[in-house]
């Protein structure tokens, strides 16, 4: 019997196109649901099963939209990849860091402050250069290197003016002495299916592929594999993009992404990541 899954999207990226083709190849009925043209009646969620099938792949580009749809579907008894727990941890850098530390996964030293004055004090402790990151958002957006106190003050003053209160949660990290690259791994269930180095674009220090970063295959060492899987399990598992840095003291895991963009990893490694995701989803249904 052909399985019926759904893919919830708000924008069809390369990744979603690839997932659609993989489902076709594997004979899986993948129903596409545009989150922008759908509404939910919270008082009668029984009917959602006929729309979303046995399991939903939540792939919204808008994090909060996807997270809240996941909450609704899980309440309707429909499993979602990734789960609400995983998605809520991964969408918040503070929660991710707390989870990694608790699980004993090495991660960059991080301090949190809630006012400009206290952030400056925290920076004096962690030392310059440091990195200021919003606790939400992607693609390296608004991530800033703080070279000295003057830069820090300027950037924090800008943050104070921003209307979204999440920007006044100051997540400050040590600047890890890494080569001009980091490592993106793609985890599907219990397997690291691909690993790439991401090299920063010539005019940027951030390594995000969305910022023009370049991908090259990376050998999956036992140390890297162990830490990546540990990080993935800690956030609740699923389909994830786990990012690592090569520090002088070994591998550090700095981020776990819940709606992984795997275009760069797929092209650099030749691994059929979308088929692995669809296969994994089918296995989750059978469980």
């Amino acid at each position, binding site marked *: 019997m052909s399985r019926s899954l759904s893919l919830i999207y708000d*924008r069809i990226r390369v990744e979603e196109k690839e997932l659609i083709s993989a489902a076709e190849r594997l004979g899986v009925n993948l129903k*596409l649901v545009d989150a*922008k043209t759908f509404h939910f009646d919270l008082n009668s969620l029984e009917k959602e099963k006929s729309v979303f099938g046995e399991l939903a792949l939540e792939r919204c580009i808008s994090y909060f939209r996807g997270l809240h749809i996941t909450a609704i579907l899980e309440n309707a008894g429909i499993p979602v990849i990734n789960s609400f727990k995983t998605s809520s941890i991964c969408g918040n850098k503070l929660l991710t860091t707390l989870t990694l530390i608790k699980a004993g996964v090495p991660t960059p030293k991080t301090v949190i402050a809630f006012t400009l004055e206290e952030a400056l004090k925290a920076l004096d402790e962690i030392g310059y250069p440091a990195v200021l990151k919003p606790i939400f958002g992607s693609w390296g957006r608004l991530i800033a290197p703080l070279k000295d106190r003057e830069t820090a003050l300027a950037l924090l003053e800008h943050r104070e003016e921003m209307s979204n209160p999440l920007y006044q949660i100051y997540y400050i990290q040590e600047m890890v002495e890494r080569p001009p690259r980091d490592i993106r791994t793609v985890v599907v269930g219990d397997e690291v299916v691909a690993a790439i180095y991401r090299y920063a674009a010539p005019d940027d220090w951030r390594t995000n592929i969305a910022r023009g970063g370049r991908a090259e295959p990376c050998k999956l060492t036992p140390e890297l594999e162990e830490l990546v899987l540990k990080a993935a399990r800690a956030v609740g598992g699923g389909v994830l993009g786990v990012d690592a840095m090569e520090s002088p003291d070994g591998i550090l895991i700095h981020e776990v992404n819940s709606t992984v963009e795997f275009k760069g990893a797929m092209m650099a490694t030749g691994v059929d990541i979308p088929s692995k995701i669809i296969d994994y989803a089918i296995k989750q249904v059978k469980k």
Partner: protein
Amino acid sequence: MKFTCPECAAEFEVEDVIEGEIVTCPECGAELEVVLDDDKFTVKVAEKAGEDWGE
């Protein structure tokens, strides 16, 4: 597939489109989303990137 840009009225052609895909108007550069309206593909101005967009 032939489209008319809702921003600048330019006419352009794109092959093999699917619903939800983003195409760029070759004339004005507007980001347009392919939508299915009464079984016909058409384009509308795409959503603007939000602060929470990404992975």
